[in-house]
Every structure is written in C-alpha cells, then in structure tokens.
C-alpha cells in the first residue's frame, strides 16, 4: 500500500426502505468507510447485513437515503450507473445470453462509443488476460460456470473502470474452482491495478484475498482492518464469532498494565489477556481464545480443566470439545501428527487445556 489515495469514500451513507404500513428498515445505517486506490477491499458479513446494499449504492443501482458516495473526490451518489466509471461482476454473472463471449466483453466499450478497432484490440487483450481466447465465439450458454465467471470479469474490466465491484462472484462455483478463482482474482487485481471492492459472506475468501476487510452486521460496519487484524484482534463479539471459530470465556479484570490485563476467568484460572488501548480495565469482560491457540494436555499441566466430550477428526486437524468445570464448552484444535491420530486423549476422560501465551484477547463490549 504505497499509494494511499482514497478511491471510494462513503460518508454517512444510509439506505432506509419504507413500505406502506410497515416500520422503516435501515438496510444501511450511517456507514462511513474509505477505500484506498489499488486496494482489494472486502465487505464481509452474513446475508442481510447490508453489504450488497452498500455495493449497489456504489454501483448506482440504488441510491442512499442519506449521506454521500465520493469517487475520487466527486459525489456520485445520485448518478445513474451508466454515468459512473465503476463496473460490477454480478453474483449470477448476468452475461448476455444472446451474445457471444467476445460480444459480451466488448459491450461496455461499444456503449462508451469507442471505435471498432479499439474495441477489438481491447477485447482480444481481455480474452488473453482471462485465458478465454479459444472460446471467444461461443455463446455464453456453451461455456462452463468457471468460464462464465472469467468472461464476467473480463466484461467488467474491459472498460477500465476506476473501481471494480464484485458481488459474491464465487458463490456459484464448486470448492476447487473457487480456490482457483480466488488466486486468479488476486492476480487480476495485481495485474490491472484496479481497486476491487469484493462482497462475500465467506470468511475464508475474505481472509485469503483481501488487503483490508470491513465486517458488517445489521447495516453497520463493525470493524475495518487487515485480515490479520480482523482475525487476531477482533474488536467485538460478532467479529470474533463470525470469523473463524472462537471460544468465549467470561471473567473479571483483576489488574491492567499497558494493554495487558490479568483476568480471573469464571471457570477458575487467572490468565493474561491483551486489550486495545482505552478499553475498560475492570469489571466483567469477555475473553476470546481461538481453538488453535490452545492445546490439550495432562490435567496437572493445564491452565483450565474439563472433561473431553467429543473429538472430531478433520484430516489435517482434530477438534476436541471440552466441557470446562463451570459448564462452559471449549474447543481445542490440534494438528494431527499422522500415525494413530488419537493423541492419547480419551472421550469421557478429564483433560487439561493450555493456552498459547499472548493469544487471549479481551473484547470491547
């Protein structure tokens, strides 16, 4: 991120839907976010969180009931989509079924009124970029889902938009293809140098591709940060819960020194947990510990104690579900070492849990 120019600046944008005789619903509630030039920015959240609404406001398919949408300093909030230098890759691709692959890719350029020779050259360039040259004269119904996806990308990239919007573009693909396309998307973004705004509900997709992620819920942005920030330093319970798997433990702060607090957990032990500056340093708090930052061990060596209730084998690792002494459930994830795989822990037996140092974290709620 050497270039820190702001591409899209959303300022206090709201979108309230009013149906007669019903309570108005805010799909987007006073959202502000700055997206930098050349950034792979992801809007992540469950369905109905407002991420697609925000994308549609930027694309121009919908208009904010309040606030501004700035594109390189110009308010575009009320411009129709065909007057915005922004293109969209749709969830269902929305390829024109009555046109060939090449005609689809050239459509935007044609509508902009570019000369025929220029269009042909650019279409050829785009076909090469997404590796679809042999398919250029096919109808869009005659190519596979993954190929349709690449055509949709090429079509949206062809007019050289200032910002490319992607609305869950990978959700219709099967697992392996999705993995390949994630890498492909990242490559395209790097090669074209275009700002990507990517909408998804898939946290793994968000973590692997994004420069920065905004986690959304109920029409609001809860946290914006790099994948590392979001995963390792979740600010609120929703973010911690939505991204990856997490153990929530309640406790009370005993003492606090420079961002690290001693917390007495309800299940017994006292542990050290980090917290952001300016967070409350006393009273009841929630501590999060990722399953992979804890290990099963003998009862004597463990910081926490409980009974192993279940072990679920996942190939690369095993999830151990432990019922702690105070009744809360705790999950431990351990890498499998090959061989027997059971690691010597028996379901129903008492076990101890050790926590990696510096991984416990206090939430801001």
């Amino acid at each position, binding site marked *: 991120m050497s270039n820190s120019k702001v591409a899209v600046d959303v300022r206090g944008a709201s979108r309230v839907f009013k149906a007669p005789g019903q309570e108005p619903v805010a799909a987007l509630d006073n959202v502000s976010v700055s997206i930098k030039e050349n950034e792979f920015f992801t809007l992540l959240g469950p369905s109905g969180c407002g991420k697609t609404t925000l994308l549609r406001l930027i694309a121009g398919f919908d208009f904010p009931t309040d606030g501004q949408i700035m594109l390189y300093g110009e308010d575009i909030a009320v411009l*129709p989509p065909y007057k915005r230098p922004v293109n969209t890759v749709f969830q269902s691709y929305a390829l*024109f079924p009555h046109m060939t692959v090449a005609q689809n890719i050239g459509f935007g350029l044609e509508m902009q009124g570019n000369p025929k020779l220029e269009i042909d050259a650019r279409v050829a360039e785009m076909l090469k970029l997404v590796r679809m040259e042999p398919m250029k004269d096919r109808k869009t119904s005659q190519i596979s889902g993954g190929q349709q996806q690449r055509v949709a990308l090429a079509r949206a990239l062809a007019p050289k938009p200032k910002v490319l919007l992607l609305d869950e573009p990978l959700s219709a693909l099967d697992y392996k293809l999705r993995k390949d396309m994630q890498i492909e998307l990242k490559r395209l973004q790097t090669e074209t140098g275009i700002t990507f705004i990517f909408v998804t509900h898939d946290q793994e997709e968000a973590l692997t591709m994004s420069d920065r992620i905004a986690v959304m819920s109920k029409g609001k942005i809860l946290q914006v940060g790099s994948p590392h920030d979001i995963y390792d330093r979740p600010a609120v319970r929703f973010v911690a819960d939505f991204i990856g798997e997490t153990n929530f433990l309640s406790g009370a702060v005993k003492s606090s020194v420079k961002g690290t607090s001693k917390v007495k957990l309800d299940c017994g032990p006292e542990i050290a947990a980090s917290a952001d500056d300016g967070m409350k340093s006393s009273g009841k708090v929630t501590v999060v510990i990722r399953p992979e930052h804890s290990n099963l061990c003998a009862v004597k060596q463990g910081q926490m104690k409980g009974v192993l209730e279940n072990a679920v084998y996942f190939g690369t690792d095993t999830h151990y579900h432990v019922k702690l002494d105070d009744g809360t459930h705790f999950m431990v994830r351990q890498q499998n070492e090959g061989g027997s795989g059971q690691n010597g822990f028996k379901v129903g037996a008492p076990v101890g849990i050790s926590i990696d140092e510096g991984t416990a974290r206090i939430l801001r709620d």
Partner: protein
Amino acid sequence: MMDAPLSPAAQVAAENDMAVSRRSRFLTLPSLFIVFVFGVLPLVLICIYSFLKPYQNGGVVWQFSTDAYLNFLFQRDIFDDTLQFAPDFLIIYGRSIFYALFTTVVCLLLGFPTAYFMATRPPEQRNWWVLLITIPFWSNLLVRTVAIMFIIRDEGLINDLLIYFHIINKPIVMLYTDFAIILGLLYSFLPFMILPLYSSLEKMDFRLVEAGYDLYASRWQVLKRIIIPLAKPGIVAGSLLVFIPALGAYVPPLILGGGRHLMIGDLIAQQFGSGRNWPLGSAQALILMAAVLVALYFYSRNETGPVKHG
C-alpha cells in the same frame, strides 16, 4: 457390451422404459383423433371442393374444374366468354393484409409497455394482471364488438359526450370506417400480443438490465440491445398470434365496417352464404392459407438463417 445378457434388474428397467414410451404415445391419441377429424379432413374437403363446380343453391357439382381459381383473378365476359382481369378479390386481400399488418404493429407498440409493466410487478401481483388481461375472453366476441359499435356510432357514447361538452357540434363519423375496423381488430387481438410478450419478459433475468446500465448503456440502448432481443420469442409468437387471425378476421369488419370494407374472412363467408359458390370460397380459403404459409416460410428462414441458435 451390446451383446452381454442383461441382468434381471436391467431387463425390468428396459421393459419399463418401453412401457412408459408406449403409454405416452397412447396419451396423444385423443388429441390426434380430434386434429384429424376436425382439422385435416375439412382441409382435404376444402381442397377437393375448390376443384369442383358450384351447385346453384349451394353445395357442389362433382365435376372437375379450375374455375374457382380462375375466378379469383379473372371474370368471364358474359357475351364473348373471354377472361378479363378482375382485381376485386386481390384488392380485398391487399386490404386485409394491410389491416392485419397495421393491427400487428400497433398491438406490438401498445402491448410491449403493458407486458413490461406486468413482468416488472412483484410476483404475487402478476397473476392478477394476467387475469385482468384475460377478462375480455369471458364474454362473447360478437357482444363485445356490438358494444364497440354502440360506443363509436354517431349517437354513441363518445359523440354524445363530445357534443354535450360543446367540443364538437356535429358527430364525428367513426362507425363503418377503416378506423372502426382497425379499432375492432386491435381490441380483439391485443391480449394475444400481450400474453406471449409477458411470458417472455417474465422469464427474463432483470439483472441483465442492470448489467447493461452498469456497462454504460443508456435506457434506450438497454431496450434496443438487451430487452428487445431477449423478448424476441414473445414478439414473434405475439405477432403471429395477432397477424394470422387478424388476416382472416370475420366479426369486426362485418359489424364495424358495415360490410362496406370487406376482409378475407367476410369474403369467404359470403361465398358459402349468399354467394352460393362453395368452390370459390374454398379456393379463396386455400389461397389465404398458402399465402400465410409462404410468408411464414420466408420469415422462419430469415430468422434461423444467419444466426445459429445454440
């Protein structure tokens, strides 16, 4: 593989497949029977009649003759028995084609926005709109056409109102004009345009429209380049459903045209009625059918020729 004996289960499956296809063939028998008896047989009959001689009180004399076809274009001079070119029937055919084409174009222009409106309503409302469009079918065409007559005649609703409000002081003559016939045709056939248009627009993915706007197409360009091409099956079906019956329309020109501006349908009916010339009527009907088939042939060849549908 082909010669390997089938397992018992595979045998049962194969027999079942055959039984199903045999049974489904039987299912079409009743409709095939109806099509044959009431569609093919009358057509054969008309074909035969058109090559016979008319009996003076209607019916036919079983004697081969091509007079019916000659009479379509020529009239035999009663004094010297020579054939003279008589374009009367051709004029009626030409007028009918013009009326039918005009009706089709206007139905398309009126029907498209209507169908688009219906297709863009919330799904639960759409069936109500379809129902509203079909309401005219609940009463007889003759009754509805007579109702139009009462509305547009000199002492009808429209003229009475215009005179009452002193907009005009002499009734505008609408009944028994070309205008009246075309109004009747439009009224009768508009639903046949709207419904196929609606069904193709309703299936359309409106995200394609958004994609069009997103790719810098203006409203007009989206309509021209995306919506109309995708609605083409509906446009074709609707145009055929309007044009073909409009060409042979009988009731509207008879009642609203007052018999002064005949169309093909009335002409044919006349031969079987007061004209008492069944062979001529049969020939006229066949010529109409041939014209439609030839037009359709060229139309479909144009459609599928250059663009291969995948």
